[in-house]
């Protein structure tokens, strides 16, 4: 199965019933597959007029209680930024798939990259936090897409599947489970103010059409949902809650695997470079090469770095100029060595082995 198809299948298995999208290479197979499959499960597929509209449509659909998703690549992702911020501010659960390609601008439409990792974290204006997943295989395209919907509903936040052309267009055999775990969005208790958070800092969801009479606005709002854009304290409290509901759950959201925790040299990867590193560790058969493989990149699971107690250095192969390497630098005292790669090709295992030789 192709990665993009696995993504679409994972979404439908997770109960996604609304897809609003716009064609863009290398993500288009997701829209095409949703167009084919959603009508058969009583879902809605709509090809919108642009990516601003795609993002808007999935937010609108989400307020009727539907699990909704869009898929795009760099240029479309840039266009979605304003409405992504709206989803953050209004705490609208939704899933945005970015099949990354080489940028900036039109760049390399048919070549893989990981250059949007920081845009996904910080691309819309203002302070906020989101959740981003990064699959390294077709199997993970299926599983992490399904998982993205649960996280979006649990935390009421846009969740990003930050994949790329390599995994999106990769074909592998996968296991499709009979059913995927589904965590439903919690409803707002009647009598509670619509934006009053529970202990987990997330308010219950007042679905449209259920008589809640909720006003949803991108303006700074109070717990009634009413605009209140000139109170410094209220704005600060709201934005800090939106950030803290994600950041305080970092360890719970974290999803990673660890190889050779006693190692002195530790690779940190997410997405396709993980495959090259796994090959290197297998080929060399040494236990002094460690590997931290992230499936969740944002919120950054910093405590995972501490599990490598003997680490002397962290090597970070990324298909960008070192976006997540900089994040790792913030958390550790040891040297962090980015291994950037641009142009669309993945780091080869031999390249990484040569890099290890130099470091010896």
């Amino acid at each position, binding site marked *: 199965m192709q990665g993009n198809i696995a993504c679409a299948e994972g979404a439908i298995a997770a109960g996604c*019933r*609304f897809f*609003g999208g716009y064609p863009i290479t290398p993500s288009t197979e997701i829209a095409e597959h949703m167009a084919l499959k959603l009508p058969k499960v009583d879902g*809605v597929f*709509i090809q*919108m*007029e*642009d990516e*601003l*509209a*795609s993002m*808007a*449509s*999935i*937010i*609108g*659909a*989400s*307020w*009727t*209680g*539907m699990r*909704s998703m869009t898929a795009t690549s760099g240029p479309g992702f840039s266009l979605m930024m*304003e*409405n992504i911020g*709206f989803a953050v501010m209004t705490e609208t659960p939704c899933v945005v798939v970015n099949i990354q390609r080489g940028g900036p601008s039109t760049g390399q439409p048919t070549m893989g990259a990981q250059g949007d990792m920081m845009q996904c974290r910080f691309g819309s204006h203002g302070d906020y936090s989101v959740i981003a997943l990064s699959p390294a295989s077709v199997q993970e395209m299926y599983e992490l897409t399904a998982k993205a919907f649960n996280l979006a509903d649990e935390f009421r936040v846009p969740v990003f599947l930050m994949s790329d052309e390599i995994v999106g267009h990769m074909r592998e055999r996968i296991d499709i489970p009979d059913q995927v775990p589904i965590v439903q969005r919690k409803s707002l208790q009647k009598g509670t103010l619509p934006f009053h958070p529970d202990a987990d800092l997330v308010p219950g969801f*007042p679905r*449209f*059409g*259920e*008589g*809640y*009479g*909720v*006003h*949803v*606005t*991108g*303006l700074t709002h109070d717990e*009634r949902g*009413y*605009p209140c854009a000139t109170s410094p304290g209220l704005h600060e409290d709201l934005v800090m809650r939106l950030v803290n509901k994600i950041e305080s759950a970092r360890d719970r959201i974290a999803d990673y695997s660890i190889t050779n925790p006693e190692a002195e040299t530790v690779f940190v990867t997410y997405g396709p470079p993980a495959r090259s590193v796994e090959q290197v560790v297998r080929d060399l058969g040494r236990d002094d090469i460690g590997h931290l493989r992230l499936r969740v990149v944002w919120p950054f699971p910093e405590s995972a770095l501490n599990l490598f107690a003997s680490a002397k250095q962290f090597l970070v192969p990324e298909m960008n100029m070192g976006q997540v390497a900089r994040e790792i630098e913030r958390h550790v005292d040891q040297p962090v060595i980015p291994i950037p790669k641009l142009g669309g090709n993945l780091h080869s295992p031999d390249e990484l082995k040569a890099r290890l030789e130099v470091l010896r």
Partner: protein
Amino acid sequence: MSYQDWFRQDRLPHIYCSGCGNGTVINCTLMAVDEIGWKENETVFVSGIGCSSRASGYIVTDSLHTTHGRALPFATGVKLSNPDLNVVVFTGDGDLAAIGGNHFIHACRRNIDLTVICMNNQIYGMTGGQGSPTTPAGALSTTTPYGSSEPAFDLSELAVAAGANYVARWTSYHVKELTRAIGAGMRTPGLSFIETMTQCPTNYGRRNKLRQVTDQVEFMKNHTALRQKLDRMRESGQKVPADVIAIGEFVRRDRPAMGVRR
């Protein structure tokens, strides 16, 4: 139930300037809704950004106050995912015709079952009186200090050409006609577009020799004529003055629509 029951009393007073025409349009909308007998929990108001778009927040139903220009794609998501909801969009000339122009023509083309009410005050009111795509040629605004040198958009003709099932234009002076038109739009499956010329004394009238609210309302009364009448005048070779605005029903038809209640 009265139309006043649809107001969110704890949001009042509203933000509109004294003499603003938007309140009239909101009243007409709620009178139409009340007359049709829509239920609060089956009705959703969606809006973009601007003075007009604050309207959704003053109504007791579920409402979505979105980003600038994007009310229609948000409403598309709401309506297609739950066709049982009645979805009304409040928008303005800047929101709909400038930043949201592309969404407007595509929503009309798809003919989604929405009622779109555009409060066209020919100016950006909230940001302090800049020219909009419907500012008449020659009119003064803060960004057209020597008079607008661009021709204005005719939004109703645009909606007709793009495929909306129901299109009508009235003004905030024509309260009864406007209420009837909104009701007719709500009853018509597919996209209904009701354009209403509204006075903006603060940012339009003040700069365009219509200082008093009544001057602008008077202007709308005296410079409008039924579309059919204007057509007859043109057919008989009579000259129609350039500042006369066509009002009335532009189209009522039955093209296939999307998102109609199952």
